[in-house]
């Protein structure tokens, strides 16, 4: 059974961003998403012996995560179903709940297909990021995805600004070619 030894010590570093992105596109709440990811890791730890090594570790964790997300929705729906109050703020006349915000067309209204594509996009990007060297991946994530200021990153990581730009440049070059292959 040693053919598929798995090493949980590295899970967080390797998979947490990927799993988190997978979750956040499905539950829309950072706190909940983090909890679900954490539960997934715990569950993975518990059932490590059952891992048959037929799929990659990540696929296996994702399959656990999927169940967790489904369970999460089941739980909130059963609670909510009992005590749900359906609100309709525009129910009679002009003056009831006359909030303009609710009548404006949603500019972010997207089709199902669009959403699907975006969900996969997030995963594709994380796929490519995970292929970068650790330092580049970290800097790129902080700068681009989290939107930190250059100065903040420099202070936190103890590098100079020109150093940072070189790292960013390398990361962007390899990411662009990776996305070129896998996405476009």
């Amino acid at each position: 059974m040693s053919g598929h030894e798995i090493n949980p010590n590295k899970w967080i570093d390797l998979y947490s961003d990927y799993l988190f992105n997978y979750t956040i596109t499905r539950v829309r709440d950072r706190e909940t998403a983090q909890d679900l990811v954490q539960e997934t890791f715990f569950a993975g730890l518990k059932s490590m012996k059952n891992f048959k090594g037929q799929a990659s570790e990540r696929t296996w964790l994702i399959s656990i995560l999927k169940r967790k997300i489904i369970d999460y929705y089941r739980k909130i729906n059963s609670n909510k179903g009992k005590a749900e109050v359906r609100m309709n703020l525009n129910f009679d006349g002009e003056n009831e709940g006359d909030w303009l915000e609710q009548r404006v067309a949603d500019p972010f209204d997207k089709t199902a297909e669009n959403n699907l594509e975006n969900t996969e996009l997030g995963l594709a990007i994380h796929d490519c990021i995970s292929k970068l060297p650790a330092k580049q991946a970290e800097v790129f994530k902080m700068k681009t995805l989290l939107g930190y200021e250059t100065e903040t990153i420099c202070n936190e990581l103890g590098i100079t600004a020109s150093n940072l730009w070189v790292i960013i440049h390398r990361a962007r070059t390899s990411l662009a070619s990776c996305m070129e292959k896998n996405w476009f």
Partner: protein
Amino acid sequence: MSKGFKLFVSCDKAAHTCDKTQYDEASLWEKIKLNIHLIYCKACRKYSANNAKLTKLTKNPEVDCLKNCEKEKLQTNFKKELKDH
């Protein structure tokens, strides 16, 4: 100031400016120089286009990742669990 008025820049400089523009950190003068460079440099044009494409993708709201402190929290919790295991 005389250095600042150099109209033609090297590819290295141009690439650097291009990276900076992706984060809105390049000055107007730098952007002008970049654009002049792009007129005659095909390689940088390609890089610039790819770079912009990448930025567009990462700006997508569906692309998200954990903040460092959040990740640390996960890590410590997980370490605890791992010890008990």
